[in-house]
């Protein structure tokens, strides 16, 4: 599978994501925010960081980048898109996923390892995990409190769109402990935790590796 990593001004997890993909044997390409070319990739990753400094609101400015027009088209045609942390925030701002992010309930940045429960593995991104599996991954964000209206929340639940929940402590106050969601069609996923920081044991956890392994072509 050909994977593209978008670089917005202020993105800072692009190289980490590249490194994680390299570990599973993929050779991703970088996509530049000013361009309109997705370089024929099969999957677009919007990595973490502080696009435009997170000024105004996380993701609010990046979503107007030229490349985002192509990403939206690509997603609408069924292309795979994964947003991690700031990438998730951008997907929300761009309307590719429902809801919004609010500042953490602690009123501060939080960097720590958290536990997640895989609620739905019946999709492209999480198919290598089992349903109910508990995994460990770091979070590092200031605006990670997921919010959505009650009505839309019901919809998310009905369609099994909540794919990852914080297990145990809900670090940032997200509604229903939501850590990751997917769109109805199952091709656009966003998550606040950083799987790319959990691919080597000596970094604390390897539970992110299965996500990246799922991008390998099936034999």
């Amino acid at each position, binding site marked *: 599978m050909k994977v593209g990593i978008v670089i917005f*001004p*202020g993105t*800072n*997890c692009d*190289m*980490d994501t590249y*490194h*994680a993909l390299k570990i599973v044997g993929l050779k991703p390409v970088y996509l530049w925010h000013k361009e309109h070319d997705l370089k024929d990739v099969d999957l677009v990753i919007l990595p*973490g*960081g*502080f696009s*435009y*400094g*997170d*000024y105004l609101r996380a993701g609010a400015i990046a979503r107007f980048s030229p490349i985002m027009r192509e990403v939206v088209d690509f997603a609408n045609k069924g292309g795979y898109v994964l947003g991690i942390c700031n990438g998730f925030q951008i997907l929300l701002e761009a309307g590719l996923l429902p809801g919004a992010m609010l500042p953490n309930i602690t009123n*501060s*940045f*939080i*960097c*720590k390892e958290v536990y997640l429960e895989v609620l739905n593995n019946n999709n492209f991104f999480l198919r290598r995990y089992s349903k109910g599996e508990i995994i460990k991954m*770091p979070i*590092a964000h*200031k605006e990670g409190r997921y919010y959505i209206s009650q009505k839309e929340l019901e919809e998310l639940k009905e369609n099994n769109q909540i794919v990852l929940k914080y297990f145990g402590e809900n670090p940032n106050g997200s509604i229903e402990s939501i850590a990751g969601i997917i769109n109805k069609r199952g091709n656009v996923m966003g998550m606040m935790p*950083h799987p*790319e*920081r959990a*691919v*080597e044991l*000596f*970094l*604390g956890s390897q539970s992110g590796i299965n996500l990246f392994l799922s991008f390998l072509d099936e034999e």
Partner: protein
Amino acid sequence: MGVFGLREEEIKHAIKVLGREPNDLEWSVISVIWSEHCSYKHSRKYLKEFLTKAEWVEQGPGENAGIINLGDGYRIVFKIESHNHPSAVEPFQGAATGVGGIVRDILALGARPIALLDSLRFGPLNKGRNKYLFEGVVGGISFYGNCIGVPVVGGEIVFEECYSSNPLVNVMCIGLLTPDQKSYRGRAEGEGNLLLLVGAKTGRDGLQGASFASEKLDEEVHKKRPSVQVGDPFLGKLLIEACLEAASLDGIIGIQDLGAAGLVSALSESARRGKSGVELILDNVPQREENMSAEEILLSESQERMLLVVRPEKIDKVIEVFRKWDLEASIIGKVISKERFVVYFKGEKIVDLPTELLVEGSLIFDPPYTPYEVPSISSDLYNSIKEEHIANFVEVLVEDLLIKESIYRKYDYSVQTNTILPPGLGDSAVLRIKGTNKGIAITTDGNGRYCYLDPRKGAIYSVAEACRNILCVGGRPLGITDGLNFGDPSDPKVFYQFREVVKGINLASRVLEIPVVSGNVSFYNGQGENTIYPTPIIGMVGILEDINYLITPGFKKPGNLVYLIGDLSWLSLGGSRFIKDIFNKVVGDVPWVDLIWERKLKLFWEEIRKEKGILLSAHDVSEGGLLATFLEMAFWGNRGVRVDLPDDKIEYLVGEGSGIVVEVEREGEREFLERLGKYALKAIKIGEVTDNEFVISPYIKTTLSELFKRR
């Protein structure tokens, strides 16, 4: 503005050397660059004494940062810098711009910043503005560091009365040069090469920042403070990426950051280093505000700017890189062969001064100094120590762990995916170097209480402690960056402290063979009654030639043996955390430290760390004595310990001093002792790792779960 902050003799000196009376603007230029902050006029003579060379040192002091070689083409760049004065006035922005500033020093060598450490000192949180300052500073570091994606992997926090209203904010940055990267110097040379100013536009921010940092912070200064500098981490991040991309091109001769005294110091210093001169066209500096005067443009300390010296034929390619990142890039002048700093504005030549006069021409001051006496621990105090004090002290130490955690949780310490030993979990942070088996260990250490009680011994102790901290995680110490924080140098006691501290650092660094490759000096911190303790911060970097040498401090397995390398009799209450926290006194003789012993320990350790499985965990004895050491090893390993102290001397429990506690397996005990013997090092068996039991007899009998209920 003309002359400001200069003494009569300095004014006369300038006129004499120049052979004429400088004009108003030239006086301003001379005044800022001869400020303490830029000219090091009280410290230069002493800093020259340092050991600065070793086989592995590629760049020592004198550049924007030092470089040490890790082998195979990998090099580590590092420096520490203080931002005390700005943080006292506006803690959030002061600390944020402190981070931005040190990051650009690293960037100037062409290296990618890969880690930050913050060494912080505040007054007690329950008094005055201290809580506000503390929260602002931590917020500012978190704001800037997280946004630029450079992990804050370690640091220190100390609360002490003397830092009330004059906090210390020292930030150390570490950069990496990979085999394919060139390293740069802050050098302007080669007649006709172009001066390219990149990054942010120039505004009126931080005018006179350098001289402000060279003054006492009294009420007056608070009122007439210079306009505050505001950090823009977003732009800072773009500047990092753009500079690194440009640095990979051909045709760049030198790179220099713009810090204190803005264009004046960046240009004159790089010209001086390159044995050349510069001709600056001030009109070409992109300005953020209207009607800026020549002086304002020249002295502005606007953040997020860098200077590149570029060959004319490559200039377009370089400018293109900055355009790609939406940054300013303007040719503001050129290198000339005459060693002069020449400035044009609106067609007129308005400054023409020799670079030698600016950069090395200031008078050197060597003020008088006097030693002073400090009280010892009275027998009344000693005899009044009761059992309940120990229980209170346990509370204090547990609280300490929680405060530290509340800080580093606000820093992104895992970005860049290299942090193997994150903050709060060890004596040093450990990072792996991608593409190799290597790792680096990094720490900052300083002990103002010791340095106040005995400046020379305190400084020696700080270097030895930093060294032990690198050893404890399995590293071999390679270099020091020292952040020297002091009061007013014209106070003879303060100058005595300064001289002694420098001597102490020098001695320790020579005996331990760890050279000083960069550093920073900050004077005028507090005054009179409110002068800060002399507070040298030792930043140290070591190498793990193989990341498998990593040793972590958490206890590993119940049944394993616990040894103290060192001697219980070395532990002392003088200057200890215990006496300070329980009796609110800073008194006594600071702990004994023997550099020859420390050197042997270092040699022993550099060998044994390579044997997998002998040392299972290690942690040095520092603040809080063995009690703190055991608490932390238990806390981090989630295991208990049963210790039998040979005597109920309180020093054994909470006294401080040299020493490392290690965990060894029963099967490894013989080997461990033999190797110790080889280096004639002493060690005593003092306990055993347990499951949940936490006992230090005859003082403490409890359980892990009981101790860390609040975790």
